């Protein structure tokens, strides 16, 4: 159960940063009622950030990841989340095996 100070510091920093985001939203709440372009820009943040996080894996790792990503995107249009995950995992394992 030993943990060095650096690890603890990193975990606490992440925890405080994350809770600050959640708490800011809770406190600002309805006052952040936006309309028009501003609302469109803010609504775009969740899908844009989620996309940005995985984009390098999809487009700058190797062809097995890129093709598996394309298959997974197709699956995401039709299947529930669990099916999407299974499709992604199975296709990447098969394609990586083909890539050798």
């Amino acid at each position, binding site marked *: 159960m030993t*943990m060095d100070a650096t690890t603890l510091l990193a*975990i606490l*920093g992440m925890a405080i940063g994350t809770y600050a985001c959640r708490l800011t939203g809770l406190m600002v709440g309805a006052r952040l009622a936006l309309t028009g*372009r501003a609302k469109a820009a803010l609504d775009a943040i969740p899908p844009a*950030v989620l*996309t940005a996080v995985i984009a390098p894996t999809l487009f*700058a790792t190797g062809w097995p990841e890129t093709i598996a990503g394309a298959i997974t995107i197709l699956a995401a249009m039709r299947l529930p989340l669990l099916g999407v995950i299974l499709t992604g995992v199975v296709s*990447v394992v098969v394609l990586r095996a083909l890539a050798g």
Partner: protein
Amino acid sequence: MTEAPPDSAASPLSEWRDGVAELAPAMIAAMPLALLYGAVAAGKGLSPFAVALSSGLVFAGGAQLAAIEMWTSPVPIAGIILSTVLINARYVLMAASLAPKVGHMPLWARLLGFHVLADENWALAERRAAARRLTLAYFLGAGAVFWVNWVFWSWLGAIVGPLIGDPRRFGADFAFTAIFIGLVAGFVTTRRHVAVVVASAAAATLVHQTFGSPWHVLAGAFAGMAMAVIVWRPEPETAA
């Protein structure tokens, strides 16, 4: 067992059960991610206790997985915290949007409930609040189960991970990518959203190749926002 008539207020137990049932697919989906997170973190030298602590205190899968990717010796604390805040900046908006719908709950429930607020239960809570009053049992009750689920599986991952070996062999690392694809697909309901996602993917890939992590997250976020502003049209957005 007494069945409440359909029009009367639901009991806390049935509200809680509703919440857990609706969250169940997300909890099952989070399982391999949590195991993966624990296994990779253990590989980087974190103890099972440190893994459980991080999952319990941070409770943000995407940011935790990104942090573990960046985890080297010495630990780049500033970079990891910056990446965490960037990835979780969306919680400001998600929380702000949900805040008026929990205004009737006591402060402690809001403070705890928003700590366990993640993409999946946020989306479900928003959907629920659109149809009926959001209850403490549904929101915090199901959120707590979601939290325990995440902490437990990541802790277990840190214990069994070192015994299994490289999680890449099972494609477990790609489960993270797949779940994000699934979550993004949930947001994309119009052609404008497709433009946002394409802009973000292009900018993030480019910046990742030139400046590296975590700047691609910021670049993708801004490119997506810019695209949303560009393609915005004044008519009311009624999703098809």
